[in-house]
């Protein structure tokens, strides 16, 4: 935890003097796709380094939009957003956005692997964006130390023996584990997962969530994920943030979330 704060402060010189900054800080965050309806309508959210935060809410409440806005994949329409202390969105520069993304791992609901490439090549893709990575599109052309890092990441998700298989030859659960290895190969400080277990059967979903939280704990990675499965939200997160109609309905420790809270979140 300590070295995370130190590294963060080094990235933004003046913050080092004013103490540790939250990893993510959103104030009055707004997002609209068509200027008529606000998908995010004044979100206030602070996430500290090392936390595991579950975002819950019904379909269309803005969970995925919030996750993608956090790393600048969806430009925000208003408010302020800082990630790793740097502004994201309208106030941030392209360099800041890329730098922030390079410290972040992202796992999508569908695994988003390049189907025709080997598992190893897909994991090496997680290193794209680092200096001299343009030729890393195939494991055959990647640097040897990158190949080794990717093999270590695959070993962590117990798929080292599948390294040379084509990505689309794996089961859904295995593909999601490859996506986790790809997200973790660069040892990100922040891992964002958009319904990582939604496309999996209950047992595979549970295994993937176990793996996620274990790896995040082992490597002191901050985890933010969305889930429709309340057991996944309550069992694996330190904190649960519920969204409704683009606003934060509640934000409290996972063990204090009640049935009434969940009913409020998903009713109407």
């Amino acid at each position, binding site marked *: 935890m300590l070295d995370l704060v130190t590294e963060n402060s080094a990235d933004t010189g003046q913050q080092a003097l004013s103490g540790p900054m939250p990893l993510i800080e959103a104030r009055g965050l707004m997002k609209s796709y068509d200027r008529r309806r606000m998908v995010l309508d004044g979100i206030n959210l602070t996430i500290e380094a090392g936390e595991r935060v579950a975002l819950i809410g019904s379909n269309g409440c803005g969970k995925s939009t919030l996750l*993608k806005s956090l*790393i600048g*994949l969806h430009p925000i329409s208003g408010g302020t957003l800082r990630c790793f202390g740097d502004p994201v969105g309208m106030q941030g520069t392209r360099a800041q956005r*890329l*730098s*922030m*993304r*390079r410290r*972040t*791992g*992202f796992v*999508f609901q*569908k695994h*988003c*692997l*390049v*189907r*025709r*490439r080997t598992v190893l090549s897909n994991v090496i*893709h*997680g290193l*794209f*964006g680092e200096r001299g*990575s*343009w030729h*890393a*599109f195939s494991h055959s052309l990647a640097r040897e130390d990158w190949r080794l890092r990717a093999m270590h990441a695959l070993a962590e998700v117990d798929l080292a023996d599948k390294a040379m298989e084509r990505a689309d030859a794996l089961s859904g659960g295995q593909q999601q584990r490859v*996506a986790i290895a*790809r*997200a973790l190969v*660069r040892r*990100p400080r922040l891992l*964002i997962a958009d319904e990582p277990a939604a496309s999996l059967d209950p047992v595979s979903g549970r295994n993937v969530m176990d793996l996620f939280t274990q790896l995040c704990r082992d490597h002191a990675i901050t985890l933010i994920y969305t889930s429709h499965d309340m057991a996944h939200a309550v069992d694996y997160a330190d904190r649960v943030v519920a969204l409704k109609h683009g606003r934060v309905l509640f934000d409290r420790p996972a063990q204090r979330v009640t049935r009434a809270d969940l009913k409020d979140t998903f009713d109407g």
Partner: protein
Amino acid sequence: MADRGLDAPGRWTGFSPLNFVLLVAVGAMILASMGKVAPSPQQLAEGVPGMANLVGRMLPPNTEPDFLARIGIRILETFQIALVGAALGIVLSLPIAWCAARGVSPLGRGSILVKAFVSFLRTVPDLVWALLFVASIGLGAVAGTMTIMVDTIGFCGRFFAEAMEDAEKEPQDALSAIGAGRGSVLVGAILPDIMPSLINSSLFALEKAVRSSVVLGLVGAGGIGQELKVAFDLFQYRNASMIILAIFVIVMVMEIITDKLRARIQ
């Protein structure tokens, strides 16, 4: 047996009065044009003996060893024009298609201009390009190669760009989300996804290049077409029939090879 309350739908529900008027107008235009440019029965009757006479003078095809050796060299040159022109065109088409593909292009809205440039290359016929290159570079195979290259860029540039636009978006988003640049997204996610389509289009381009390269010689751009023109100009019809036979064989061989390669990719 039939239900009296049940009516069958109308027979011409998809055929509006406007469609009918358009159909009649197109039919009238075809009939009017036929009066001007289609052969009359009298012309056909007179042409058949002329054609029979020509075919008679073409047979048997010339199989003299010296002549066969000469057209063998010309066939080799034709293949070289087609292969080098198509290869250069395919390689150059990749960055051009990347710049032209909407939503993928590093030029943003500038992709429209690149797309317009590719359309321009495609709409000018290959024989016109050949005339331009013969006039600027001079007679011979280099003008032919340049023609095939430009023609291939017009063809592959469009199909590669469309394939890039249709590539799966999720893997691209996944790479963008971790800080990959546009070039990395191209080589890491887009190209692997569209590879079968790229290979298919390239094989079609090669096939098209071989067909084009056999006629480029008619305007002095090298290859077997040049021999064909000389044979007709000098009324050496037995030579001409042998050259036509050779063209048929090389186009057929090329189609068989590319068909087999395509089947393997599928």
